[in-house]
């Protein structure tokens, strides 16, 4: 279970998170939505210790991880993986080496065995064919799929996907949705998915939370969102150009 | 067999081609700068601003580096003299002469290549990858004339002035050390008796050519930047290496010509 409790975070004068509280139950897929710049990426980075809150607490499986040291965070990161918004593959390595790196570092496998397992993960996202290429030569969509494969190498219990389908064509996006669903169903992974993709949101989400002006505006089931009378929520869900939402 | 041969040719050929095209790129910027200077198309206001920036950025840096160089050179030379012929009268004049002829211009040139050359490449490189240079081209402003010519003039003047300052700083540092550690009085140490007009000219010619070439070499590196932050970093690195190397090469050429032709 993941709990964010009253998180505040500012960058200089910019008060991005102004008291965000959010709970994700075991085995749930929570979709985090909100306009660009709302602070979705900022919020999820707190969970793996890449950012520290100004105030508030983060509790993972009942353990307060807010002020763990960098070294104490490493075990947390092994069970809580993150797919970055910009994929952030290592440019200097091939796709295969990118995915094999966690195996070599954490399982102390030799190169051949690490590569074999990395290929298995790449197969999950249909990327074995690009194993020998460099990330710089791939399009955004393909890079994103490699990043997903890399995040799954350590068989995490929790996975954060930061905009996993943005920039993907509809078929590839549907494949990622399918992957997230089967992760939940088959391995019981708990996931937070940052997304704008309305179709994925309504086909995969167990719950949705919308972040707006530094607060959670609405937190509920897809059904709650469809029926919401809140003008901001309904503007976002229906993608209307005008309405009360400040962009 | 054939494949191995081909790989061999590639391994030797690729760097040569790279150095060749790099040299050609520098030559082409050089030609454009000369053309602009001949036409008198110079933005003098920008020249003044760049001179101020170069001087302001380098003064502290040159004080530190030349200060240490002056201290250690005098310390080492004086320790030798103390052991073989404890007569320090020639040390100061010879030190000042050597500073003029060789170390003040060369080390100043290297420091400006490092400080200013990398700065020029970083600045112009960032403008290239953020397409500001293309925007300049769109309003018919030639980037070489607009960006590099003012920096070339400014740096030519400033490297000469900073070289004189460098001699001064190294001499002060050496003088203090000679006085404190070896009891050589400042009036013995500071003497221009060995510095001839030829030495002064040689030093200033070196400074002038370093100052002229550094912005050309560094600006060319900046203009050929491509591809985001990695491209800017790479261009900046290339500017430092290429402009430092240009200083060493020019120093060799000028010293060589000076020694063989003019007996300097």
């Amino acid at each position, binding site marked *: 279970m993941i709990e964010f409790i009253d998180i505040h975070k500012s960058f200089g004068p910019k008060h991005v998170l102004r008291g965000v509280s959010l709970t994700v139950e075991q085995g749930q897929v929570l979709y985090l939505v909100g306009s660009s710049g709302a602070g979705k990426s900022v919020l999820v980075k707190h969970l*793996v210790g*890449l950012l520290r809150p100004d105030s508030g607490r983060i509790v993972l499986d009942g353990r307060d991880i807010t002020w763990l040291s960098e070294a104490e*965070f490493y*075990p947390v*990161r*092994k069970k809580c*993986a*993150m797919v*970055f918004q*910009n994929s*952030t*593959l*290592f440019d200097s390595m091939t796709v295969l080496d990118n995915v094999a790196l*966690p195996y*070599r*570092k954490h399982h102390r496998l030799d190169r051949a065995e690490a590569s074999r397992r990395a290929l298995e993960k790449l197969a999950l996202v249909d990327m074995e064919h690009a194993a020998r290429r460099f990330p710089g030569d791939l399009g955004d969509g393909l890079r994103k799929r490699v990043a997903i494969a890399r995040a799954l190498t350590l068989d995490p219990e929790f996975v954060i996907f930061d905009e996993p389908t943005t920039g993907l064509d509809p078929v590839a996006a549907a494949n990622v949705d399918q992957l997230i669903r089967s992760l939940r169903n088959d391995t019981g992974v708990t996931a937070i998915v940052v997304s704008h993709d309305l179709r994925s949101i309504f086909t995969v989400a167990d719950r949705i939370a919308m972040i707006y002006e530094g607060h959670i505006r609405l937190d509920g089931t897809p059904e709650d969102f469809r029926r919401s009378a809140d003008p901001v929520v309904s503007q976002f869900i229906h993608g209307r150009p005008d309405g009360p939402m400040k962009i | 067999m054939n494949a191995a041969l081909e790989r061999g040719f590639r391994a030797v050929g690729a*760097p040569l081609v790279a150095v060749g095209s790099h040299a050609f790129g520098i030559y082409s910027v050089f030609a454009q700068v000369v053309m602009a200077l001949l036409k008198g198309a110079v933005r003098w206001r920008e020249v003044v601003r760049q001179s101020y920036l170069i001087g*302001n950025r380098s003064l*502290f*840096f040159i004080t*530190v*580096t030349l200060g*240490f*160089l002056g201290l*250690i050179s005098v*310390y*080492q030379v004086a320790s*030798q003299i103390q*052991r073989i012929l404890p007569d320090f009268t020639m040390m100061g004049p010879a030190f000042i002469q*050597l500073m003029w*002829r*060789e170390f003040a211009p060369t080390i100043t040139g*290297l*420091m400006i290549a*490092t*400080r200013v050359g*990398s700065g020029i*490449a*970083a*600045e112009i*490189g960032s403008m290239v*990858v*953020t397409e500001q240079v293309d925007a300049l081209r769109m309003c018919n402003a030639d980037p070489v004339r607009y960006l590099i010519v003012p920096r070339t003039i400014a740096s030519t003047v400033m490297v000469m002035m900073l070289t004189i300052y460098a001699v001064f700083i190294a001499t002060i540092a050496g003088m203090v050390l000679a006085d404190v550690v070896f009891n050589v009085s400042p009036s013995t140490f500071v003497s221009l008796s060995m510095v001839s007009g030829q030495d002064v000219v040689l030093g200033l010619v070196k400074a002038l050519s370093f100052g002229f070439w550094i912005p050309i070499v560094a600006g060319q590196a900046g203009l050929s930047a491509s591809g985001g*932050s*990695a491209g*800017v*970093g790479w*261009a*900046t*690195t290339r500017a*430092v*290496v290429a402009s*430092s*190397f240009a200083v*060493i090469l020019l120093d*060799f050429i000028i*010293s*060589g010509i000076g*020694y063989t032709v003019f007996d*300097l």
Partner: protein
Amino acid sequence: MRNVLVGPVSVVGRASMGLMATLGGATMLLGRILRALLPPRFDRDEAWRQLYAVGVKSSAIVMVTALFVGAIMVIQTAFYVQRTGATSLLGFGVGFTVFAEIGPILIGLMFSGRVGANNTAELGTMVVTEQVDALRALAIDPIGYLVVPRFIAMIVMMLMLMALGDVFAIIGAALTADTLVGVDPSVLIGDILDSHLLDEYLLGLGKAFCFGVSISVLSCWYGLGVRGGATGVGRAVNNSVVANAAAIFFIDFVMGWIFPVGL
């Protein structure tokens, strides 16, 4: 008026604040590197890869620089030797300056320009594209994975290139002695070998070791501290080479003071 008075003071003030911040940050980074070395907790594959990469990047430029350093020092020394008639001192003068003073400084500056600047650019790019955060998110320590292998590679390569560079400088000196100065190369090389310059040679290597430490620590520190996109990377590279040049002259001074060499 006020500006005229406050200007220089605040420039010096700001420079010394920056110096303190750099020294403090770099010292802390060095501490973390040393802790990762005892007991060794770093990526050996990556260390080998860096060793190779640093060698490939810097060998050619250091060798060529060394050739010219030897050549320039012969010309300058010949000038004095000719005036004073002390021809026997040519070999000693060239060998001393090349091994102990000018050789290490110029080779160090070139190494800093090529390898240090490149390192700052690489790490800075990894920071702004979030690749360093990605490493942390994979529970991989950036110090052990990125910094320590570079630290080792730069120290080892700096030492090797200095040892080799001295040879190339002698070659450059011999060639120039022959063509420009009119001294037989075998005489010059014989003179240098007879001048008992082992101490100078070792001092040069000692300096190279310290340059390797300072170049790797400072360039990593500036690289990891990059903020703000492409402009930030360019600025960091600029600061990194400047700090390294200042460090090289400072180290040169301190080492020369602690280990006096010569006749």
